[in-house]
């Protein structure tokens, strides 16, 4: 019962803080706004290429940036230490923040549903694909946050990692060699699903997504077990 109280308290705090956090607000609106602008200024063929890329970046990059920066900031400002000393366990904190970031990322991604006309089936597929992408990215964000000592040190790591995973699928569409590399990451299949407007990807693609998730989960568990949340 107290665990639920703690998770709900952290979640509530995170929702309130998000409305006052400029980084979160800017990133939250960045890709949907860019998509809306591009919809007005580029041709349909160009938009068909760019929209899935924006959607992929939005789905994949937001959770990494939000999760890592929120936790790193709490470590630096010692607010996390105070929570832990008030009997909030690390996993309760992670879940409270994680649920909030998950909903924020999903909400931001769902803005795209208003931009592209979709059938109900396509919309459901879109949400399922987004959910898979967001969960994998949340794990990456949490891993980076555990490794980072403070907010200053998380930026130089988060930026290249989120850009690599978020932008690689788009560049892979222009270069065959890059496509081979991109196929190793879940973000490639997220983009493929957005391009095809469906979940109809082959079994080997699902296997790669599953493997990505398993590796990330394993890394997270190992790091969490040995480091906790770091400077708590």
């Amino acid at each position, binding site marked *: 019962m*107290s665990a639920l*109280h*703690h998770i*709900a*308290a*952290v979640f*509530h*705090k995170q929702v*309130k*803080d998000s409305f*006052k*956090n400029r980084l979160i607000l800017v990133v939250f609106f960045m890709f949907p706004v860019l998509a809306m602008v591009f919809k007005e200024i580029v041709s349909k063929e160009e938009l068909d290429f760019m929209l899935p890329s924006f959607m992929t970046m939005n789905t994949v990059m937001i959770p990494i940036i939000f999760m890592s920066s929120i936790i790193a900031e709490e470590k630096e*400002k*010692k*607010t996390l*230490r*105070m*929570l*832990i*000393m*008030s*009997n*909030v366990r690390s996993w309760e904190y992670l879940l409270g923040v994680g649920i909030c970031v998950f909903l924020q990322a999903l909400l931001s991604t769902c803005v795209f549903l208003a931009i592209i006309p979709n059938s109900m089936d396509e919309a459901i597929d879109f949400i399922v694909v987004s959910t898979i992408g967001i969960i994998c990215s949340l794990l990456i964000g949490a891993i980076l946050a555990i490794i980072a000592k403070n907010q200053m040190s998380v930026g130089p790591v988060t930026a290249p990692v989120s850009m690599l995973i978020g932008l690689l699928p788009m560049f892979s569409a222009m270069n065959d060699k890059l496509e081979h590399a991109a196929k190793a990451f879940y973000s490639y299949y997220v983009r493929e699903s957005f391009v095809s407007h469906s979940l109809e990807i082959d079994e080997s693609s699902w296997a790669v997504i599953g493997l990505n998730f398993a590796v990330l989960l394993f890394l997270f568990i190992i790091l969490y077990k040995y480091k906790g949340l770091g400077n*708590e």
Partner: protein
Amino acid sequence: MEELRTRAANEHIGMVSVMGKEPSKYDSDVYASFGMVLDNDGLYDRLSCYDNLDLYARIYSIRNRQNKIYELLEEVELSEESKKSVSALSKGMRQRLSFARAILHSPKIVFLDEPTSGLDPATTLKIHSLMRRLKEEGTTFFLTTHNMAEAQQMCGHIALLHEGRIVEDGTPEAICLRHRPECKVSIEMDDGNCYETDAGNLADLLQKIKKPQNDILRIHSNEPNLESVFIKITGRRLE
């Protein structure tokens, strides 16, 4: 000491026990009986004073939390700032908010780490008067401070730490008595003359120097305070 208590530090010699339980056996009831004001206040800068307290009121599942929070903000004289972001508060206000958070759930023990360090005298007085009131109501304070005058004024029992070891402990009066040198009394007259004697001979001296044309300006005793005791024991000044 506080890190040991809260399980933040694991390497130590000896035993740590609060309310009869070792840190590894603390449950949520034990944690709920702690309040803390640490060196770094751990307040959320972007959130308002109210929201900062609201987070902990939710963590501790406090009933009627809205009323309780407003009562406390009133008590620490921050009710007008309740909707203000913490980043807009002065250091003294932050410290008062931090103190309000520590006592929000009516803890039995409050750990304070340098609670008045760098604060103006008015804020220090406010915090001290709150501490006194809570002490009277039965709250135990565990105060860590370099300010020996504050320790002497606020504490019922003191332990002096030097290089990680307790070098002296007891009530402030008992500690000072133990380290009292041969007690001397000096008397300064308004004509500039100064007399010194053992405390036992004070009455004789007063009789001797009694002159109708001169008044006593000051009487000093060389009773030690905690600071002089600390310097005597450790051989070094307080930092």
